[in-house]
C-alpha cells in the first residue's frame, strides 16, 4: 500500500490527514469479535460444529449400520459394545443417533434455507414496492401465521403424503411468513435511509439497489432468526417424525426413534433418553448461537 500513499496532494487545500494505518474493520469482522467474547454463544457454536462433524463423519464413527438388526440382542442396556444400548430390533442406538444427526441437521438447514429464500424475496418485494403488492403478500403471511405451525405442517404433510421430504417442505412453508415479515420490516426501515436515496440519485436501478444496498443491510436479523429457526425446524421435524408423518422406518430420525420406543420407556429407558438428549443438545446449541449472534449483530452500527 505504500506506493499508493504517495499520491499528489489535491488542489490547494490541505488534505485532512490522520494516521496511516491499514487496519480495516469490516462490519462482519466486528460482529465476529463481539461474538467471540460471548462465552455461551461460543458454547452454542461448539455444540453446533460438534453435531455437524458427527453428521459428516457418521459412517466412519458409527460402529454399526443404522438399520443393522440383531433380534437376539434387543433392548440391551448400554455397555462397552453398545454405548447407548439397543432398541427393540437389536439396532445399535449409538449408531442410529449419529446417523440421525445427518437427518435432523439436513432438515434444519434445508428447510430454513428454503424459507429464507422464499420469505426474503417476498418480504423485499412487499417492503420495497408497498401498496397493493404489499397488501396481497402481507395478507398471505397473515393467513399462514393464523394457523398453529405444527397444525399447518400436519395439514401440508397430509396433503403431500408422509415422508421426510414432505415434512421438510411443510416446515419450510410454515417458516416463510416469519422470514417474510422480518425482511419486510427491515426493508421498510432501510429504504428510508439516505444512502438509498443517494443510490437513486446516482441513477441506480431498483434491482441493483435491492441486491446491493437493501439486502445486505437487512442480513443481520435474517441470520439471527435463521439460526433460531433451525432449532425449531429440528424440533418440528422430530414432532412430525414422532407422529409418523416425517421420516419413515428404518430412517434413524430422532423424533421417530422416540415414537418407536415409547412403549418400552420403563423397561429400556435408554431407547428414549439418547435420541431425546441429541434433540435437546442440538436445539440448545442453535439457540445459544442464535442469541449470541443477536447480541453481536443487533446493535448494528457501531461507530
Amino acid at each position: 500500500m505504500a506506493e499508493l500513499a504517495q499520491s499528489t496532494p489535491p488542489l490547494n487545500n490541505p488534505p485532512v490527514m490522520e494516521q496511516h494505518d491499514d487496519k480495516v474493520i469490516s462490519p462482519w469482522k466486528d460482529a465476529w469479535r463481539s461474538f467471540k467474547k460471548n462465552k455461551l454463544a461460543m458454547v452454542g457454536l461448539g455444540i453446533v460444529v460438534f453435531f455437524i462433524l458427527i453428521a459428516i463423519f457418521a459412517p466412519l464413527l458409527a460402529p454399526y449400520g443404522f438399520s443393522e438388526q440383531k433380534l437376539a440382542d434387543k433392548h440391551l442396556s448400554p455397555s462397552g459394545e453398545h454405548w447407548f444400548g439397543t432398541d427393540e430390533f437389536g439396532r445399535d442406538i449409538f449408531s442410529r443417533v449419529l446417523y440421525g444427526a445427518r437427518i435432523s441437521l439436513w432438515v434444519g438447514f434445508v428447510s430454513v434455507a428454503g424459507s429464507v429464500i422464499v420469505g426474503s424475496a417476498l418480504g423485499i418485494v412487499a417492503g420495497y414496492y408497498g401498496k397493493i403488492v404489499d397488501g396481497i403478500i402481507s395478507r398471505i403471511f397473515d393467513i399462514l401465521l393464523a394457523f398453529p405451525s405444527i397444525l399447518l405442517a400436519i395439514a401440508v404433510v397430509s396433503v403431500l403424503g408422509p415422508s421426510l421430504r414432505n415434512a421438510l417442505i411443510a416446515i419450510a412453508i410454515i417458516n416463510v411468513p416469519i422470514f417474510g415479515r422480518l425482511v419486510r420490516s427491515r426493508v421498510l426501515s432501510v429504504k428510508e435511509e439516505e444512502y438509498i436515496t443517494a443510490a437513486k440519485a446516482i441513477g441506480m436501478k431498483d434491482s441493483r439497489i435491492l441486491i446491493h444496498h437493501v439486502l445486505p443491510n437487512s442480513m443481520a436479523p435474517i441470520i439471527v432468526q435463521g439460526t433460531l429457526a433451525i432449532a425449531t425446524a429440528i424440533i418440528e421435524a422430530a414432532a412430525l417424525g414422532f407422529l409418523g408423518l416425517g421420516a419413515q422406518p428404518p430412517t434413524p430420525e430422532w423424533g421417530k426413534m422416540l415414537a418407536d420406543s415409547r412403549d418400552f420407556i420403563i423397561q429400556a429407558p435408554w431407547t428414549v433418553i439418547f435420541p431425546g438428549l441429541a434433540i435437546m443438545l442440538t436445539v440448545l446449541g442453535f439457540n445459544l448461537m442464535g442469541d449470541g449472534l443477536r447480541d453481536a449483530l443487533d446493535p448494528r452500527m457501531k461507530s
Partner: protein
Amino acid sequence: MTEPLVKVENLKKHFPIKGGLLGKTVGEVKAVDGVSFTIHKGETLGLVGESGCGKSTTGRMLLRLLEPSEGNVFFEGKNVLGLSLNEMRKMRREMQMVFQDPFASLNPRHTVEKILEEPLIVHGMKDSKERKKRVKELLEVVGLNSYHAKRYPHQFSGGQRQRIGIARALAVNPKLIIADEPVSALDVSIQSQVLNLLQDLQKEFGLTYLFIAHDLGVVRHISDRVGVMYLGRIVELADSEPLYDNPLHPYTQALLSAVPVPDVEIKKERIILKGDVPSPSNPPKGCAFHTRCPQAMDVCSAKRPDFREVEKGHYVACHLYE
C-alpha cells in the same frame, strides 16, 4: 450572465394527508407551493429558509427523487419531468446530489472504494482497473488519500465522510450539484474546509451548484445569488451582495437581523418575529407571511403578492413594493 442551466417553473409539491378508516385524503401539506427560479451555468444559487420551508423538497424535486405535483423543470432546455424512468437514470449523470447527513448517506456495509465505484458501474464504466484508477483520483481531488479506499465509512470523521459524499457526486462528472445542507451536520471548524473544497471544485470543473442551507453566513460565503424561502414559496431572490446589504422583504430583513455580528461595538436592532410558522397544511390566505409580518397591510391578507423584479435582478414577492 450566461444561459440558464436549470429553469424551474411554478414547482409544487403537495403531500396528501391520509385520514379516516379508508385512508381518504383529508388535506394536503403544501411543502412547496409554486417556486420558480433559474440557475445559470457556473454559478451558485443559495436557497435559505427555516426548517420546513420546503427548500430540501425543492432540491429533491429537481432530481426527481420526489415527483413534483405540478410545475416544470428544464435542464439545458430539456424538460426533466417529461423523461421516462430510463431516460431519467441517464440524466442523473448530469445532476448529482450531496446530502446533509454524512453518516446516513453512505452505506455502512460498503467500503469507500465500492461507494465511489458504484456510480461508475451504473453509468457503464466496465473496466475495473480504470474504475480503481478513477476512485483514487476522486479521493485525491476531495482531499483524501488513496489508501482510504479500503476502509468503511464508520472509520471516518464527519468531515471526511462528507468529502466521500462529494467524491461520489463528482464521480460521473455532473454539471449540476445540488448540495442539500452539506455542512449543517459538521463542526464549524470543518464547515469552512468543506465549503472551500466545494468552491475549489467549482472552479476546477466548472460546476453549477444549488446550495441549500439554513445558515445565512454559509450561504453568503458560497453563493452568487440567493433565494429566500418561506412556507413553500420564494419570497426574495437577488444577487448575494444586494440581498444581504439591502434586503427588501420583511421576512428577509428579520432573518438577516438575527445573524450575529462578531463585533461588540455594533449594536444591531433585531427584528423579532412573533408567533410560529403557520402550518403548511393550512397556509394563510394572501401573503403567507402576513400573520407575522411587522409591516402587514390589509391587502396582504387578501391577495397573494406577485413575484416581481423590483430592481435589476432583485426579485421580491411583497405588496410593499407594488
